């Protein structure tokens, strides 16, 4: 680890700068609300730039690389805005933008079905439900108990330790063989900013890395891999969701017939 740190000072510097920027931007205390946002934004931007520069992602196609940077930067920026927004509604909306940008990255990695499915499930249903709940319950920002239970600093530090670990894993010589991985690193950053979408993303990555003989990105290949190679995992995840669903119904308070 020390070897990596000394070997890649720019990456470490970028990570620390970025983390500091996020910490600056993070709301949660009363002082934070009056803090100007510009220094935090500048710090984060510089940090991201330093990290990207050290990662050295290179794309040959001009249009593809433009789109890649568009989606990647979009995902990062909206991820930061998502966790630093003071209004929960804006957080949910930035979450939607993160999802859309990630889906754009999926399309660029020729996984259109995954992108469309993610949009339907996350942007189309989950976040709409979030918005629904927020609009019903929290018109005037987060409630007091939400504020106290929110550990912005700890969350930021642990997230960046995780991110650092990922960057380190990518930059250690053993894994740095293929140029594909360098691109994945930034996609991974976007994922780290939006933890909820990390699951499909990892599936995509394992697909593209592992099953070269399958037609990757094709619907058939995805289906074969989901309901062939990973059948038990998929079924278990489905059962888990079903159990959660039943549990939610069981916990939900019963009401008189006819009242809402």
């Amino acid at each position, binding site marked *: 680890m020390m070897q990596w740190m000394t070997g890649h000072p720019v990456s470490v510097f970028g990570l620390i700068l970025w983390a500091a920027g996020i910490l600056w931007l993070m709301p949660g205390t009363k002082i934070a609300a009056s803090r100007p946002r510009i220094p935090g934004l500048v710090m984060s931007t510089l940090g991201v730039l330093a990290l990207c520069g050290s990662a050295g992602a290179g794309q040959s196609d001009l249009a593809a690389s433009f789109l890649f940077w568009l989606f990647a930067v979009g995902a990062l920026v909206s991820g930061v805005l998502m966790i630093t927004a003071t209004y929960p509604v804006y957080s949910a*909306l930035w979450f939607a933008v993160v999802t859309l940008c990630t889906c754009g990255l999926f399309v660029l990695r020729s996984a*259109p079905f995954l992108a*469309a499915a993610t949009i*339907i499930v996350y942007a189309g*249903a989950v976040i709409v*439900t979030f*918005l*629904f709940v927020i*609009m019903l319950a929290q018109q005037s920002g987060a409630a007091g108990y939400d504020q106290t239970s929110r550990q912005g600093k700890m969350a930021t530090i642990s997230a960046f330790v995780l991110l650092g670990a990922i960057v380190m894993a990518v930059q250690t010589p053993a894994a740095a063989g293929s140029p594909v991985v360098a691109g994945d690193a930034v996609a991974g950053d976007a994922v780290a900013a939006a933890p909820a979408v990390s699951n499909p993303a990892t599936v995509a990555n394992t697909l593209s890395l592992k099953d070269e003989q399958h037609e990757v990105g094709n*619907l058939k290949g995805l289906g074969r891999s989901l309901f062939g190679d990973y059948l038990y995992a998929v079924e278990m995840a489905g059962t888990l969701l079903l159990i959660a669903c039943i549990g939610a119904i069981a916990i939900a308070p019963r009401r008189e017939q006819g009242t809402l």
Partner: protein
Amino acid sequence: MTEILVTLLTVLVVVGAIPGVCNYLILLERKMAAWMQDRVGPNRVGPWGLLQPLADGIKLLLKEEVIPGHVDRALYIMAPMISVFTTMLALAVVPFGPVEDAPWWLRFIIAPNIDIGLVFIFAITSLAVYGIILGGWASNSKYSALGALRASAQVVSYEIPLGMSVLGIALMSGTLNLEQIQSQQAAAGLLGWNIWIQPLACLIFFTSSLAEANRLPFDLAECEQELVGGWHTEYSALKWALFFLGEYTHVITISFLTSILFFGGWHFPGIATAESTYMFAWLVKLMVLMTKVFMCIILIMLLRWTIPRFRFDQLMELAWKIMIPLSLFNVVLVMICRHFELSNVWLLTGSVTMFCVWGIVSTNMRRSELQAKSPGYRMAAAAPVAATSAASGGHH
């Protein structure tokens, strides 16, 4: 280079045609509404009121744009844009003509050969709800908020039967690509249209797409009697018009989808088949498809004045208790038929049987519900003596 130019031309044709078509659809809808209510309808601007859309457009363009002081400005302005953008984007993978016979300068589909055509459409239209929900929330008004909440609940619920009903088609044809689904039906002839194979899926699809588009009888989100205008209460002028452009584009999209998925697209026996190779075959096929789409739009407009608006609990009941189970069983039926390679007759029979079974089940459910809650019902069912005592016992 030609590729890009043709794409540009196709995009231009679609984007240019849609607002005009929407305008005239609005005129048609007003005329139809008038005819059904024994009125004349717009007839002042131009002959038979044909210039009315133009007048409306000019009015909406020149009207004062009122942005209330209490709104969330950024989201308020963004909402109508999202509404139009998403519905227009969904049209990108819809083939609006015979793609195989297209002339070289027009392609009849903006984005050809997209593997996930149908899923793409659902993904994009599921984003359309953001236009409504943001418009409602940003307006900062109770009517708008209630309308937005209703709309989002409705759209999220009806997405499930919508997707499931199409899943059967996808399983049957083995593809999600609309062009391929269409050409498969064309190759199979009149009896190969999916409506004959999966009538139930067609019914579910059509109903839930009406709900997705917030059209009557499912327009709870903007029902005037309760919510003024619903989520667009606080909107005026061009922003308001954009919401309506979005709604009508959605209607056009679902009409195209219904025609292509279930009614054979441009195929019509005798006139436009897969074999017809005469000179302007593409034009005839285009006209056939347009006629089908137009009939579908007419049906939607007729339904608007035929079925009264649902109550919200009825709406949710229809989605969760009837359409979702039915579409689920439909998918299972298609799977069984595909696996055992049964003929399409079995699918048709199965569809009709399921529909009837569900009818009987819901009749009985309703009856027992009635018996459970209505005191009068108990009175009528009980003996006469018991009835008088129950009646004198007092009701509230």
